[in-house]
């Protein structure tokens, strides 16, 4: 019964204010558990390499979770300030035009604008984190951390870096010998 009540409360809170950081944090946390587990479950690979790859994936998600949270919340704060100032300017303009606005209307206008501004900028923050900040942080932080943790310093430590298959490795071109006209040679084949 209490579990049902917990779900009901969660639904009510989410319905009232769903932040775009919630699904991102949930996905990153699940990835932090699932991706290393899948890597460790792979068959036919060197156990040391598996451990290394799983640790690297775990580190990436460990970096991702707080980054989503911090960038989303910071951008939301910025959105609050921008929307609040913009509404103040709008109210001043309306009052200068001769419109009389009650305190309640002003408060409603402000709270509505702030909510929208926060939501919009939080999404931008989360997308920036996903597309720029997290890959940049990973390329800076994962390498030194992995070097300290793992004894295999020579291994590939770049995010997503994969050794290309043989087909991509440039091979030396075979130089064919120059073709000589058959009539110039001293031998004839087939008696013609």
């Amino acid at each position, binding site marked *: 019964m209490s579990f049902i009540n917990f779900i009901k409360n969660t639904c009510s809170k989410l319905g009232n204010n769903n932040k775009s950081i919630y699904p991102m944090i949930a996905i990153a946390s699940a*990835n932090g558990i699932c991706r290393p587990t899948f890597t460790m479950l792979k068959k036919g690979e060197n156990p040391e390499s598996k451990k290394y790859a799983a640790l690297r994936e775990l580190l990436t998600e460990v970096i991702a979770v707080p980054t989503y949270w911090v960038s989303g919340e910071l951008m939301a704060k910025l959105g609050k300030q921008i929307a609040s100032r913009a509404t103040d300017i709008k109210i001043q303009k309306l009052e200068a035009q001769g419109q009389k606005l009650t305190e309640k209307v002003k408060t409603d206008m402000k709270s509505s604008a702030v909510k929208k*501004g926060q939501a919009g900028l939080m999404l931008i923050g989360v997308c920036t984190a996903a597309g720029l900040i997290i890959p940049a942080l990973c390329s800076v932080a994962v390498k030194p951390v992995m070097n300290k943790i793992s004894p295999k310093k020579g291994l590939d430590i770049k995010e997503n*870096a994969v050794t290309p298959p043989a087909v991509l490795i440039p091979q030396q071109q075979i130089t064919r010998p120059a073709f000589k006209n058959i009539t110039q040679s001293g031998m004839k084949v087939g008696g013609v």
Partner: protein
Amino acid sequence: MISAISKAVSNPTLVNVAQNTDASVICKTTVNAIGRPGFILIDSNIDENTKKFAATKEFLYQATCLAVYMAVIVPIFKKGGFKFAKEKIFKNTEGFEHFKNFKEYTHYRKLADNINVNNRLQTLNKEISDKNCKVKDMYNETLIAELNKEKPEKFNSVKGAVDLSNIIGSVVGLALVAPQVSQALIHPVLRFVGLEKKEDKSIDTKA
């Protein structure tokens, strides 16, 4: 200047995407599909061939995640989440009794979000549903009475239930299903594009 920024940031489409779980996940995965391969390509520490291969692989992985999420996870969890919450958790209470599906609720919520009561009612009177009848006729008395109020009830639990279901769907889709599907798809595609060599499984019988 600040008004222009505020207007851009409070854009209704952007706000709708931000408050909608599946839309924001789609947005984030799209950014990932562009950003991650981009970062690999600009990395100067990797050689050209590795970069090309890794960037293509990463792009394919993110694209598969996006496709699986949009095609399978969103419809299942959106419809299923509403039905499950309506029948099992809320048992037709707390607003669920007024709506047959989430589409109906979304329509009501859009109207309820409109601050002006007159605008709200005018829109409702004008709109015609897919079945060639007025949308107003599909609303029950309770909903119409709510829309006449200055601050109508928004039945947050209904939206929250679908959002929670979408979050669970996102986790299942992007952390469990999509990686497995992409594992099966990526290598054939890479081989087709010519970035991966076909595995040679023939056994040397001459020995």
